[in-house]
């Protein structure tokens, strides 16, 4: 991307002129990679976090819920649920209020699942990193893939018997849900809001920066010190077991997408197929034990197992198809 060319010149200057490292050495390669990627990603994060602050302002979760229940959608609501899940960031401590709030508003359980599945798979920081490290095409594929897993998962789980699999406490609580709170209507646009959004985006970016830098540092070390095509002998496209293995190994790893993506990119450069790497990254963020523990308070173990099963299979299918599409 030529847009980032000045950043490359800046990092070249810092590496070879300011730090006076020898061109072509492993250390210089790593440092150059680190500076360039950090600058690029932090810039993209700032832009995307700003955009997300705007979206959050005009489209809070409560408004999305009220929109979804406003009319009959004839199945289109699954796509909407998954897309909203992709664009609205929410922390896992909001999983239960979200679940109860959706349920209480009369939104079908399948649509709620479509939202819940997609939400951790896609977040604004991940999009910034994908654009920066993999380009637009792979980013779009990643977005569409996550939304498809959400829609398919939601459709499959929509057949679940709510009375039997959702905890009675939760069903009871869903009866007191109030919708369309007047306090949630956003104030009219004023130029002061531009500053508010900037500050919000900046706060979020600052919070993510240590994770980004750490991920990029590990990625840069791999970039500089692991030989080219190192993984090709063991993890080539022909190894059918690579995708399931990457998915399963990732489940107990609970990490921020922000830390995983730069490592994933470095591995792809060294010969790991991109679908295998994506499966690994999606499983790290989309299937986590803390999330499971939270959701266990809401639903039966059987439903939780189905939820994890559906998402796991979805991620593996995405991994395989990406390996076939972009060999």
């Amino acid at each position: 991307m030529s847009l980032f060319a000045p950043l490359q010149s800046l990092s070249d200057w810092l590496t070879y002129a300011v730090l006076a490292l020898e061109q072509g050495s492993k250390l210089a390669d790593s440092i150059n990679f680190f500076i360039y990627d950090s600058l690029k990603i932090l810039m993209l994060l700032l832009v995307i976090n700003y955009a997300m602050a705007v979206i959050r302002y005009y489209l809070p979760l409560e408004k999305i819920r009220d929109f979804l229940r406003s009319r009959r959608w004839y199945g289109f609501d699954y796509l909407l649920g998954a897309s909203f899940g992709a664009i609205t960031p929410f922390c896992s401590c909001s999983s239960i209020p979200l679940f109860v709030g959706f349920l209480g508003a009369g939104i079908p359980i399948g649509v709620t699942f479509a939202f819940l599945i997609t939400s951790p798979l896609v977040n604004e920081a991940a999009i910034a990193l994908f654009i920066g490290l993999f380009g637009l095409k792979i980013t779009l594929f990643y977005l569409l893939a996550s939304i498809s897993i959400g829609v398919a998962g939601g459709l499959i789980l929509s057949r679940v018997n709510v009375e039997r699999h959702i905890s009675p406490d939760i069903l009871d609580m869903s009866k007191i849900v109030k919708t369309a709170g007047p306090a949630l209507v956003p104030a009219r646009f004023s130029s002061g809001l531009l500053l508010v959004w900037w500050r919000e985006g900046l706060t979020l970016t600052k919070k993510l920066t240590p994770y980004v830098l750490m991920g990029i540092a590990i990625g840069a070390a791999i970039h500089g010190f692991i030989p080219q095509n190192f993984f090709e002998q063991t993890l080539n496209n022909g190894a059918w077991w690579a995708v399931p293995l990457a998915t399963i190994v990732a489940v107990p790893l609970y990490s921020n997408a922000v830390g995983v993506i730069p490592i994933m990119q470095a591995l792809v450069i060294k010969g790991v197929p991109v679908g295998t790497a994506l499966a690994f990254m999606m499983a790290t963020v989309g299937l986590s034990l803390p999330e499971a523990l939270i959701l266990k308070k809401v639903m039966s173990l059987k439903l939780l197992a189905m939820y994890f099963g559906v998402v796991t299979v979805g991620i593996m299918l995405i991994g395989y198809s990406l390996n076939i599409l972009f060999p």
Partner: protein
Amino acid sequence: MKAMKIEVVGTGCATCQRLHEATKLVAAEIGPEASVDYISNQAGMRRLMELGLMQSPALIVNGNIAMVGYIQGNDKIKSLILENA
């Protein structure tokens, strides 16, 4: 001076506890008229549902929703409390 009833409502998560700590500090700065209640776990969930909210934690001042989902610094929390009092 008008009494200021501040509620921090959450599901009991780490973020909720952080907001509670921050709000206590801010309330102490405002003065004795500001009192902070921490409503969490089951009771917190109920309060969120009553308010029609789905994000945790929430900051409520005299019954007004001041902030939902916590990302703001202490200065911002203070100004939100004063605006909504």
